[in-house]
């Protein structure tokens, strides 16, 4: 009897849990559903309501083509810029972080732990506070409105975070592998390249995944570092796009928004376990 009641209680508790989760899921998904269906309405149509959202007068997939090519703003160019900047930041960060992480994890030299501490301290400074002086610095380097300015001083990306995460992972790679490589005539660079990096793919993927999402979705820095329309990234271009239409032509605005979202969403779905791993390891927010 007691067992049956307990089972019934647990069953209803599970049901309640699912009900709450489904409710939150609906709240999460609904804005995206609205975004997608709005993007398919006729481009000069009134803002759809929930009433006619799913029943537009015709499905206008050509909005996407219009936004990408014939729109008043060169969205395809924004997309190319975003890809170049994001790829640049990811590669740049991975190279810097793996080199430093190897030094911290494998080599012994005076002041190593002090420098490591200094690295961690730079993580504590909020990136937004650095923006004004960084702008002055990049201005003096004549890097404004160039890929250099968009990629190199990337203030949001914490090199320290990547170095920390990679160092922790490198420490778990068995040292016997290093020694074997050394006997084969490898130097430190060779060990890093042929032994450590191939065994650290998950950690590299985690650092790269965060770098990708942070860069792709960043707004404040590219807003300041680019001034000409042709140097805008998608994220900044999208805000200009919404300003240009001043709250009208929602179908086109939403087509542009979907174009910005889809690459990041696909990337997240493919790489999600690396995000979860990174957060669980370091407790870092995405």
């Amino acid at each position, binding site marked *: 009897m007691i067992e049956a009641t307990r089972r019934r209680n647990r069953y209803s508790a599970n049901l309640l849990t699912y009900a709450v989760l489904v409710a939150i899921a609906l709240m999460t998904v609904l804005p995206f559903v609205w975004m997608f269906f709005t993007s398919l309405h006729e481009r000069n149509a009134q803002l759809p309501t929930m009433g006619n959202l799913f029943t537009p007068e015709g499905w206008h997939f050509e909005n996407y083509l219009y936004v990408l090519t014939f729109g008043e703003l060169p969205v395809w160019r924004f997309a190319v810029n975003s890809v170049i900047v994001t790829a640049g930041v990811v590669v740049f960060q991975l190279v810097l972080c793996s080199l430093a992480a190897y030094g911290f994890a494998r080599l012994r030299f005076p002041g190593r732990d002090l420098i490591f501490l200094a690295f961690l301290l730079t993580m504590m400074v909020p*990136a*937004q506070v650095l923006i004004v002086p960084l702008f002055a610095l990049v201005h003096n380097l004549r890097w404004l409105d160039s890929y250099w300015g968009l990629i190199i001083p990337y203030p949001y990306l914490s090199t320290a975070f990547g170095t920390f995460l990679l160092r922790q992972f490198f420490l778990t790679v068995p040292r016997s592998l290093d020694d074997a490589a050394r006997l084969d005539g490898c130097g430190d660079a060779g060990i890093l390249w042929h032994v450590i990096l191939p065994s650290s793919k998950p950690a590299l993927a985690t650092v790269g995944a965060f770098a990708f999402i942070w860069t792709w979705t960043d707004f404040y820095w590219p807003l300041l570092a680019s001034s000409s329309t042709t140097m805008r990234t998608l994220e900044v271009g999208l805000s200009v796009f919404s300003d240009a239409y001043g709250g009208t032509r929602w179908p086109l605005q939403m087509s542009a928004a979907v174009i910005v979202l889809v690459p990041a969403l696909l990337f997240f779905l493919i790489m999600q376990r690396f995000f979860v791993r990174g957060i*669980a390891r370091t407790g870092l927010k995405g």
Partner: protein
Amino acid sequence: MKRSHRINWRGYLFLAPATIYLTVFSVVPILLAGYMSLHRWHLLKPDRPYIGLDNYKALFANPFFINAIRNSFVYVLASVPLGVITALAVALLVVRPLRGVGVFRTLFYVPAVCSQVAMAMVWIWILMPEQGLINYAVGLMNEALAGLGLAHLGSIPTSTNFLNEPGWAMAALVVMSLWIGLGPRMIIFVAGLQSIPQQLYEAASLDGCTGRRRFWHITLPQLAPTTLFVTVTTTIAAFQLFTPVYMMTKGGPQRTTDVVLYHIYKEAWQKFELGMASAQSYVLLAMIVVIAAIQLWVLRRGLTTEEAR
């Protein structure tokens, strides 16, 4: 092997790129901000005279900057506790061993990896008068009430322009922050919950400690370091609110959403007063550091008294 115990000078070579990078783009800017804040530094004017602490004196006498500080505090005090509590509540649900729970975890994370600009555009629609999601739902509710013959209770107006009402705009930004930030905070809590030793619960159930008391006496104290971490990082992020304000309210209505970072943005890139903006950045940095330190101190004390009990 003895080799690894010898001093390897090449270590500096491996550290050099990242160290130089961090020095130039992180340490130098911090010092540069301090230097700039002591000068009348206009972006377009070549002479930048030293003026001591005048910028700091001026900003504390500026009612609009004081107002921005107050707005930031309102936002932090509302969004951080709500954000932490909702994330913990949802984490407690998705940590249960139920089928399909992984799908929910992934789903709830999605807004956090999305373009903030696109999210702001969608929320402008959600908060719109008449056609917006909330007002549309209110309209449906009114109709339902009327249909049930309860029309005499009156109907709620569907014309509320949430982003244009001084009382509502800040509340709207807080609700939006809960929606966007849920996923990452939840995942950290899930990791914290999963690391609580199962034996503690077994021992407690032998002592007849179940249900709600289990949560207050085991889960919450064991989770204290995680809660501390989530609270501090959420606070730091909340002080740096920018994109939604830039996209949705421009600091309005009546400066009720003019938070510190947005104020700095206007100071630097509408008035070009980089010196003043640097001084304001230093004040923001000081605020963040002090608040984070207080949180660490208070929550850590809470943690140790909990253990002493």
